[in-house]
């Protein structure tokens, strides 16, 4: 290997053995619906932190083949509100030790994130967020355009573009991780602890007794259970509808794309709310780009091409060197969004059913954090303090955690 080899080009080999493929048992203490990152992390921490291992993770497709396999893997905790910071920063701290915890490479790369400001109001909001982050013990800085260019020299900071860069917030501890490795690391650990990961097993209904769920109906038979944790991301409404529970979720396609492999040109993560594109360079060298959701509700795992066209126009203006890059692949996942752009986690009207949903476009970064908190919630039968603000009843009480525009690209 020469020194010209891009960093991270050599992905580690997977272990010979990842997990068993067991037949479902007749009953479990805990059934987790959805084998994405959140479901697998919850399973891992149930075993590790609470010694609860009579657990099944039921996945209708293949393990972590939903949003977990489709997301752009940005990890940061520079949210505005205290409630959001608490859970995302808890998660970021777990990311920082996750490779050791899982005993598996996850290629967590803390290369920092720049959130660009393009208007006077952007600048004010960004500076406010930096101060809020600092008060919450989150690393954050405000950078001038010249300082932005020092960190990421290919950002166009000239002032003759439509939305000139007026500065950026910077969180150095933000980063990316290799999503598949993360999922497989959690899966391996959960399996090792004796938890059954059951693929090709769709939950199609529930059996209930008053306000208690007694079991799940699946494409592989009925399974009795003590507690149910819903970790089905974009499909939560479909499951809640089966229970007759309403939640203010709407599912949308969210698209992403990658370029061909390139030399290292993009050392950090750059996000822009205003022109609406975000970019990082993957370990192997692809430019990974995303934007906001397609506007309409959808479950189709594809989106409209004009969304990509707009996003590319913004990308090329911000990064003129991208103009000659070839687009390799586009895809979409189905994300569940809420009216206040924050997740819905916690109790449902069924006393033994917990919901974990509404992470929208930003739930990958929460993977270890929510797994930890949901496991604690299930084990103790009450919401962990970090998820308590995200209860379903906030839409009635008005105690919303409105993160729209506060920290992220679109939700």
């Amino acid at each position: 290997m020469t020194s010209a080899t891009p960093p991270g080009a050599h992905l580690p080999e997977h272990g010979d053995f990842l997990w068993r493929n067991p037949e479902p048992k007749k009953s479990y203490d805990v059934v987790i619906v959805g084998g994405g990152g959140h479901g697998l992390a919850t399973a891992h921490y149930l075993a590790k932190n609470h010694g609860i291992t009579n657990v099944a993770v039921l996945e209708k497709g293949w393990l972590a083949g939903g949003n977990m396999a489709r997301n752009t893997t940005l990890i940061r905790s520079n949210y505005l509100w205290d409630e959001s910071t608490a859970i995302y920063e808890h998660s970021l701290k777990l990311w920082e030790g996750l490779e050791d915890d899982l005993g598996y490479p996850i290629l967590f790369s803390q290369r920092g994130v720049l959130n660009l400001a393009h208007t006077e109001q952007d600048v004010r909001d960004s500076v406010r967020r930096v101060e809020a982050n600092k008060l919450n013990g989150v690393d954050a800085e405000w950078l001038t355009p010249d300082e932005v260019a020092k960190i990421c020299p290919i950002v166009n900071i000239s002032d003759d573009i439509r939305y000139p860069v007026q500065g950026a917030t910077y969180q150095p501890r933000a980063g990316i991780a290799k999503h598949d490795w993360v999922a497989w690391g959690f899966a391996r650990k959960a399996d090792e602890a004796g938890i059954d990961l059951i693929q090709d097993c769709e939950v199609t209904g529930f059996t209930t007794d008053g306000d208690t769920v007694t079991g799940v109906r699946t494409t592989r038979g009925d399974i009795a259970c003590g507690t149910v944790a819903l970790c089905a991301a974009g499909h939560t409404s479909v499951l809640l509808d089966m229970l007759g529970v309403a939640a203010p979720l709407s599912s949308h396609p969210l698209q992403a794309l990658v370029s061909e492999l390139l030399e290292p040109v993009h050392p950090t993560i750059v996000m822009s709310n205003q022109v609406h594109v975000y970019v990082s360079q993957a370990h192997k060298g692809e430019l990974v780009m995303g934007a906001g959701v397609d506007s309409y509700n959808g479950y189709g795992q594809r989106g409209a091409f004009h969304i990509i066209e707009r996003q590319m126009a913004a990308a090329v203006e911000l990064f003129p060197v991208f103009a000659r890059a070839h687009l390799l692949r586009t895809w979409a996942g189905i994300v569940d969004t809420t009216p206040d752009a924050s997740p819905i986690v916690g109790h449902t009207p069924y006393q033994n059913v917990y919901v974990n949903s509404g992470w929208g476009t930003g739930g990958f970064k929460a993977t270890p954090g929510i797994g930890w908190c949901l496991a604690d919630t299930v084990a103790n039968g009450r919401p962990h303090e970090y998820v308590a603000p995200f209860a379903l009843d906030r839409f009635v009480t008005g105690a919303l955690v409105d993160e729209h525009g506060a920290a992220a690209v679109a939700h």
Partner: protein
Amino acid sequence: MQLIECPWCGPREETEFHYGGQAHIAYPETPSELSDTEWAQYIFFRANPKGPFAERWSHSGGCRQWFNAVRDTRTYTFLATYRSGEPQPEVQS
């Protein structure tokens, strides 16, 4: 991108349209009598079906009229479009 049938203008490019969410959500008749739960239902809670969904669209880049559509959220196919105030048509899904 697909063609969407505006009930006034006929088929036009998807890029001319804007999405408006679930259709047929009526403003409460007696707003002062609503409980917090009922207000929350009216403001925040929307159906999110996997299948046919009655929703609002605006032909913002054309005649600028709002209209309703039934669209399948699995395939994104428009099964019907109709003018506001007209009843939701029966569709084959």
